[in-house]
């Protein structure tokens, strides 16, 4: 049984279709992310699940029961808002007790429950503090505690890390994952940041223009994207535009727009003459004459140092810029040096060109 199922859920605002026949099933206790650029419809989908918007079509089921007729305050899905929406007129304890009071829990039991959940999020004894006295990370945990104290079937998180600075965000990614393990509750996490989605999730749905492009584990999305959009959005990739010149079984030869040609796997049903984009991960590329497979000649444009993520930016003879992973940071190359970049066609994918 699934904690949360969406069945061809659609939401139209006038002529604009924000969410278009989206279906998903989230098994109990898993961390599920919806990843997409802003405006792709992911927030609208989440608001429909929480009950703030009514779908124009389709069904939403929580633990197998349709919740379409339930108002938001009767649904057992709790939400962590983008800016957390902690009540500034209440202290921490009152914030967390709010849901319990609404539910009509016995007055005597509330303080103990509040204390217990604060302990679980690692902030024991802060009941009397004002929201303004907490740090960004602490507020995050209070917002989660405020929901978790109600033992929801599903916890919705609407880009809650967006407002944090980079360091804290990296830290909170790990912490959120741990909290999810600890509570064993189903998390539905919305983000436009692919690294958040990849690091934390059991499964990720990539959303674009109101539709799911692909649902899969982070590894599947990264290694085996089904569309140019996914290949470009998840992880870093070099994108070379061209036309299919020849199809040989599972491989295609693509003549690049600026000139030159590369070989790649044929990833969809594009035919000879169709405009395509070839996606190659930086780490799939090698520099040096010995590299087998297809190759591009060029000169080193610049060295982009970033520790283990360092890259070499190569300018191909025909002008395209290509990023090549440089984990060793050998430092042997200098800008201006002629190089040959090679990659195995098996690790490059040609997808029909994305429109717009």
């Amino acid at each position, binding site marked *: 049984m699934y904690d949360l199922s969406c069945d061809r859920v659609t939401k139209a605002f006038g002529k604009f279709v924000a969410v278009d026949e989206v279906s998903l099933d989230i098994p109990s206790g898993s961390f599920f992310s919806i990843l997409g650029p802003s405006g792709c419809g992911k927030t609208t989908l989440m608001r429909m699940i929480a009950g*703030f918007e009514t779908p124009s079509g389709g069904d939403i089921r929580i633990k197998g029961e349709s919740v379409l007729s339930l108002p938001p*305050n009767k649904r057992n899905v709790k*939400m962590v808002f983008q800016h957390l*929406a902690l*009540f*500034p*007129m209440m202290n921490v304890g009152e914030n967390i007790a*709010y849901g319990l009071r*609404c539910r009509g829990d016995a007055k005597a039991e509330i303080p103990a429950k509040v204390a217990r959940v604060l302990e679980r999020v690692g902030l024991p004894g802060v009941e009397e503090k004002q929201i303004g006295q907490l740090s960004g990370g602490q507020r995050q945990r209070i917002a989660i505690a405020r*929901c978790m104290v109600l033992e929801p079937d599903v916890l919705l998180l609407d880009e809650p890390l967006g407002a944090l600075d980079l360091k804290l965000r990296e830290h909170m990614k790990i912490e959120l994952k741990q909290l999810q393990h600890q509570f064993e509750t189903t998390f539905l996490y919305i983000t436009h940041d692919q690294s958040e989605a990849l690091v934390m999730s059991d499964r990720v749905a990539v959303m674009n223009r109101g539709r799911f492009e692909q649902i899969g584990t982070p590894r599947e999305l990264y290694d085996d994207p089904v569309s140019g959009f996914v290949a470009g959005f998840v992880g870093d990739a070099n994108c070379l535009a061209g036309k299919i010149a020849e199809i040989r079984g599972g491989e295609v030869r693509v003549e690049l727009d600026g000139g030159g040609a590369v070989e790649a796997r044929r990833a969809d049903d594009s035919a000879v003459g169709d405009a395509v984009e070839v996606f190659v991960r930086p780490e799939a590329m090698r520099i040096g004459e010995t590299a087998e497979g297809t190759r591009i000649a060029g000169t080193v444009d610049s060295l982009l140092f970033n520790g283990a993520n360092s890259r070499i930016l190569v300018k191909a003879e025909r002008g395209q810029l290509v990023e090549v992973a440089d984990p060793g940071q050998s430092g042997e190359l200098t800008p201006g040096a002629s190089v040959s970049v090679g990659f195995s066609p098996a690790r490059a994918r040609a997808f029909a060109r994305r429109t717009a």
Partner: protein
Amino acid sequence: MQSSTGLRLVYRAYMVVFFLFLVAPLVAAGVFAFNDSLFPSLPWNGFTLDWFFSPVEPKLGLFHDERLLRGLENSLYIGVIVAALSVAAGTCNAFLFERRAFPLKGLAYILLIIPLVIPGVILGISILVLASMIANWIDLNFGLFITWLRPGIPLIVLGQFSFLTTITSLVIAARLQKFDMALEEAALNLGAGKLRVLATVTLPFLYPAMFSAFVVAFLVSFENFNTTLMLVGSDAPLTITMYDRMVKAGSTPVLNAVSVVLMLGSGLLALASVLVQREPKA
């Protein structure tokens, strides 16, 4: 930029002169309440509190002057009622204009503001005229004499309410505009019903604004003269009583004493409203 220091000095002097200009009449009105003289003027005859507390003529103090005390009482009474009514109406208007869409909203918004630009005297006479027309009509057709439609406290309340509601609406709406809708959604999400959300989240957020709107309305009501003058009956509030005294008996230091009480009272209230506005900074 050689002249800039000189210029700056002149500028600063101008500011000092301006603030002296601002406080001069207030100081004059205040200081002479404490002069041991029958006239609010120089020379200074020494400090006294007689104009507040003396129980006998000729220096009958403010706190023993029946008519002034009655005026003070009426002012307080009118002020509290008007402030409460206009805050209630202003809160409704704030929700109406910030949260709802309805036909002709633009026109309605102009109507909301218009009472501020109608001169107070005209608000006063127009309400007086309408109330009298209604009262006369009822008198003529039913033989009933409706007292509260004749000049008196109820009409003063209505007259002041008519423009104070604009002020309270704008103050409360400004605060409501800053409200983060996510807070209401969060409360709904946590299981609260709509009324509960209103009572526990939205209204508490508005309380500081409602409080300062109340204070402002009370003060403006307390000080109001133009509208009140047209609607006053036998129960005159303090400003009218003081004016009456000024015109009929000329100025005596007891009027300075009234001024001191008015200034102290409004100063304290203004301070309270500033403090309340400042406190909730989450």
